[in-house]
């Protein structure tokens, strides 16, 4: 029986499944670049650097094992984007899937939007479990019959067949972005969606591919005056006229599309003054927001910057209402993280179903959950060592002081190549999907 996600104080997380290759030698094309549950949580989509989309479907709960929620098995795999070449600029366009967003289900088929750096595609995923048999002009294997042998007329009938899941591109939204697309977001009107690149945000209609409206443009007249770029954008979950976009300067602007066609003037701007004690060479980099997500209620939004997660009340622009430190012990290591490029990692964040817990990833395949109500946090690890079915995950701890306790790991021992950038939380249940470099882990709440 489904119930909304509870606080982390009483939730224990168990390993459920892991998807992906076991060997340590990671093929670059298999690196997972996005993870997204659909609106019911029955489907889980991943995109990878090779342009492939894999959709997992949850099996119905079995009556034999009511303690276990259904497992996720592969439902459909398809190549969404291919590498392209821009001949005018002599540039390769990567096929990496930057984002996947599901559309709400309206009929038997499922629809999702997937995007790479330049092109957004609408995919239809449909099931076929019947096929027509008894053609007049064709044999069953498809070969055409000799017309002289056709002596009768019959109506073909549908007969059951093995389930086949087909993915077909229904719309291709191309040539609207000069810069690299970082976000797509479906509007609550279920007719329009936005796509955002570094400097511009465009509004599309799902049915119309040959034009889009530009609703935000922060490109300066003189590029030498560029000081910030757009890093993420999202529509409000209930108000179809409202969207937000975050910037590399750590600000979030909320815009109302009713105010004007071009939303360059924000309705609200959310910004926290910088703490002067924390100023360093890298202050600007670590304040860049890598993800912004509205709560399901629409009352709050969450932002992720390099070291922290912040919850903002949409009614208060001056500072966040809650701030959670993800890995504060890295603040003294920023120079090394700059040299090894880790400081540019873009971590995402997500809410649980009832907005009581938020989750985000870190290094060493650690991920963190923050319970807003109980003010507790936990660090868990996604690793094959803890991958016995239904084994409970043990909380992990990073030792920051001089003395390292047993079972703690020191900051210098952290593996910065093992990073969890993408996580997703089932919209209704306590089931989470956590992507390591090339593996997808599914964890479930322990049910007694």
């Amino acid at each position: 029986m489904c119930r909304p996600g509870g606080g982390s104080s009483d939730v224990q997380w168990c390993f459920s499944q892991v998807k992906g290759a076991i060997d340590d030698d990671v093929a670059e094309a298999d690196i997972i670049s996005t993870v997204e549950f659909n609106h019911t949580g029955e489907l889980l989509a991943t995109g990878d650097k090779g342009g492939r989309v894999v959709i997992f479907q949850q099996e119905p709960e079995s009556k034999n094992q009511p303690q276990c929620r259904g497992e996720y098995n592969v439902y459909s795999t398809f190549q969404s984007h291919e590498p392209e070449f821009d001949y005018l600029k002599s540039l390769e366009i990567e096929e990496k899937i930057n984002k996947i967003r599901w559309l709400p289900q309206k009929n038997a088929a499922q629809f999702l939007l997937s995007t790479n750096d330049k092109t957004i595609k609408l995919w239809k995923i449909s099931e076929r479990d019947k096929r027509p048999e008894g053609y007049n002009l064709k044999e069953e294997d498809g070969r055409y019959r000799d017309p002289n042998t056709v002596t009768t007329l019959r109506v073909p009938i549908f007969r059951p067949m093995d389930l086949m899941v087909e993915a077909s591109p229904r719309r291709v939204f191309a040539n609207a972005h000069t810069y690299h697309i970082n976000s797509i977001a479906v509007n609550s009107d279920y007719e329009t969606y936005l796509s955002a690149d570094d400097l511009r945000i465009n509004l599309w209609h799902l049915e119309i591919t040959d034009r889009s409206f530009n609703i935000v443009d922060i490109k300066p007249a003189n590029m030498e005056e560029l000081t910030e770029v757009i890093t993420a954008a999202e529509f409000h979950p209930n108000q179809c006229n409202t969207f937000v976009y975050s910037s590399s300067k750590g600000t979030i602007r909320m815009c109302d599309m009713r105010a004007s066609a071009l939303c360059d003037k924000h309705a609200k701007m959310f910004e926290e003054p910088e703490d002067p004690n924390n100023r360093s060479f890298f202050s600007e980099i670590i304040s860049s927001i890598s993800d912004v997500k509205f709560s399901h209620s629409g009352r709050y939004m969450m932002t992720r910057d390099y070291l922290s997660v912040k919850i903002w009340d949409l009614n208060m622009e001056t500072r966040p209402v809650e701030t959670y430190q993800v890995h504060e012990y890295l603040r003294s290591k920023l120079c090394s993280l700059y040299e090894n490029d880790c400081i540019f990692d873009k971590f995402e964040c997500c809410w649980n179903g009832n907005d009581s817990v938020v989750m985000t990833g870190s290094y060493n395949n650690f991920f963190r959950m923050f319970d807003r109500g109980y003010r507790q946090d936990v660090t868990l690890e996604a690793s094959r060592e803890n991958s016995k079915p239904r084994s409970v995950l043990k909380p992990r701890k990073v030792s920051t002081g001089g003395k390292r306790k047993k079972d703690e790991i020191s900051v210098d021992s952290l593996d910065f190549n093992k990073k969890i950038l993408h996580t997703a939380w089932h919209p209704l249940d306590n089931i989470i999907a956590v992507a390591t470099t090339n593996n997808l882990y599914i964890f479930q709440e322990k049910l007694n």
Partner: protein
Amino acid sequence: MEVNVEARRILAVSISKLYASRTQRGGLRLHRSLLLSLVMRSARDIYHSSRESEESTGAHSAPEEPMDTSSSPGEQTRLSEAQHEPQPALNSAELAPEEPDNADDCCDRDTTEDKENLSPVKQSRKRRGKASAAPDFLPSKRARLEPGEERYAAPLGSCRAGAGESLTTLSLNRVIPAF
């Protein structure tokens, strides 16, 4: 002094990252380039302010020391390339972030290097004169100005006005439109 060394090191790392990002798949990332240029600006400002404070306390101005990294003279050359190469691009109306490396036809340097195929290791080892105020990892020649542009003093009071300073001010601003 330590801050000075740190600033120079960060500047060197940043420059090498900027160049490395030009060859990465998918073209230059505007966001990343912007962040790199911000770090470079901070490092440059701190470097200059620490040098100024050294000189204001009457400390002997150290001769330009060779950098630790072996490619430091090359960075000097390469940064000036970054300034000169995109200048034809700046004239275009729509400045896309990924501009192909144009043949350098507006450089006023007197070298005959093949800039597009310049390997990161081999470069001119010519040292600039000690009289120049510019640090040894930045070029001393002034960038060519676009018509209508003016040379302006460095925006921060801590930077000394002078040939080298206005050049470095320009160079970082030019980094972004280079991409």
